């Protein structure tokens, strides 16, 4: 594997880590299997592209994208909470609907942004620094939040919702907050990738959930999830390792069209190794 492929993998891994965090928040802290990533990630990208085309500052475009994708997360939460639709089904329905919404926002299936500027430059080191700073701006306050009274209550919702109710914790409010946070992370990742590539395609979200999930699983297989610190490190570490594994596989001649099969196999392998033959699965609400 060449050094270029390695460094490129690191950069892609940092963006994938943002998606993995978005998957981890509802999945681990709310016990909510949220599948909105496939819709919220391109929604973030589409919003960012259109905002930049209209002359908005790249940072403002990212914030607008995060809010839009966050609202999509809130919609998933409300569909589940109000109409008692299964959490997975709510995510799938919203992601399907988001495809049409994204096309409406963009007006066409793809948009080039070569003349719009953006946060990134030709320097990959600089770009990685920008992504690390943005990741830190999002995740450090979240890590601090988890150690406050409200954060403890947030974590309790996913770990024991019956006890949380008994303690007077509003499952509804925390679920809505958690899915807004997760959606915002997807939106952030979508807007960053669009600014990095100077290009937005309506199909960028296809299969992104499985990449994020693979990153989370690999990270948890490496560091575990027994403590809060480990839970917070796992998505970042997993995404970086996962991208390198993909890079190695490609350098050994794996066809890019086989990547999704490869990713799915990694997820299954990690789950099988973790379960050690015991029954595992995503708990459905």
């Amino acid at each position, binding site marked *: 594997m060449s050094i270029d492929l390695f460094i490129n993998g690191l950069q892609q891994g940092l963006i994938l880590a943002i998606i993995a965090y978005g998957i981890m928040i509802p999945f681990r802290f709310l016990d909510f299997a949220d599948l909105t990533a496939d819709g919220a990630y391109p929604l973030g990208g589409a919003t960012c592209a259109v905002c930049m085309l209209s002359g908005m500052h790249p940072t403002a475009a990212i914030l607008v994208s995060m809010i839009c994708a966050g609202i999509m997360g809130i919609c998933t939460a409300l569909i589940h909470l109000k109409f008692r639709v299964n959490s997975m089904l709510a995510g799938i329905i919203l992601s399907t609907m988001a495809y049409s919404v994204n096309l409406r926002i963009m007006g066409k299936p793809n948009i080039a942004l070569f003349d719009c500027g953006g946060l990134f430059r030709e320097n990959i080191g600089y770009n990685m620094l920008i992504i690390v700073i943005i990741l830190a701006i999002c995740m450090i306050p979240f890590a601090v939040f988890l*150690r*406050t*009274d*409200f954060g*403890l*209550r947030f974590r*309790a919702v996913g*770990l*024991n919702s019956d006890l949380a109710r008994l*303690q007077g914790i509003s499952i509804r409010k925390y679920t809505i907050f958690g899915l807004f946070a997760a959606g915002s992370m997807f939106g952030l990742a979508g807007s960053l990738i669009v600014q990095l590539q100077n290009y937005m395609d309506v199909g960028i979200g296809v299969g992104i959930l499985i990449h994020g999930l693979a990153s989370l699983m690999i990270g948890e297989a490496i560091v575990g999830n027994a403590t809060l610190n480990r839970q917070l490190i796992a998505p970042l570490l997993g995404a970086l390792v996962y991208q390198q594994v993909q890079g190695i596989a490609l350098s050994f001649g794996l066809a890019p069209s086989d990547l999704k099969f490869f990713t799915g196999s990694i997820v299954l392998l990690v789950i099988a190794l973790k379960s050690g033959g015991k029954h595992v699965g995503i708990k459905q609400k």
Partner: protein
Amino acid sequence: MLSLNNITKSFSGVFEPVLKDINLSLCEGEFCTLVGANGSGKSTLLKIISGEYYADSGNIRRNGDISQVVQDVNKGTIPAMTMLENMALSRMKTPRFSFYKRHKNEIVEKIKSLNIGLEKFVDQPLEALSGGQRQTIATLMAINSGGKILLLDEHTSALDPKMQVMLMKYTVKSVREHGLTTLMITHNLDDAVKYGDRLIMMHKGRIVVDVKGRKKAELKIQSLLEMFHRFEDQSLLHEGGEDVN
């Protein structure tokens, strides 16, 4: 403090109501033990008081928040969280944007007051502790949560005899210190006689025995056992039950 009027509860698919016309009133600080055979409606009654179930008819008046310890320790605690986190969670009626670890010294002192050395596990996940130790923490959480009404559903049943005695003594002492209005379900008739100001026996969804004051103090386990067996004998059952009060 707690008042139930004409409470009735049925479950779909079950012909006979689980609770029939329950009337019960507990004064502030009153400690009441609740006994009865399996299926007599004790746990359902507690779930209606806690708000987990809705009654089909009747009304409930509660003058204070409710704290509860249930039989299943996994429901009453969060095993994946540390002892400190569990305890801190139970003390947060008004959460703040500050670190929950600010409660640590106070929580350690509370755990130390048990005198069983649990304080050394304060930063350990509860799943690393034994079932008895976890139930002790669940009881400690409920007592210190600030609720004025305490509901205990066989909270010592999963413990070994030594831990049972320790936890019962701690519960009684704490209930008295905090002036909690307490309703405790137990299958241990010895505990039901020994502890509390009042004893209620349920049978087939009705309150059939209700003793308090001097009569409760003078109640002997033998006479309680006799009553218990009498109600279990179907041939001696009669509608309306018996009030020894």
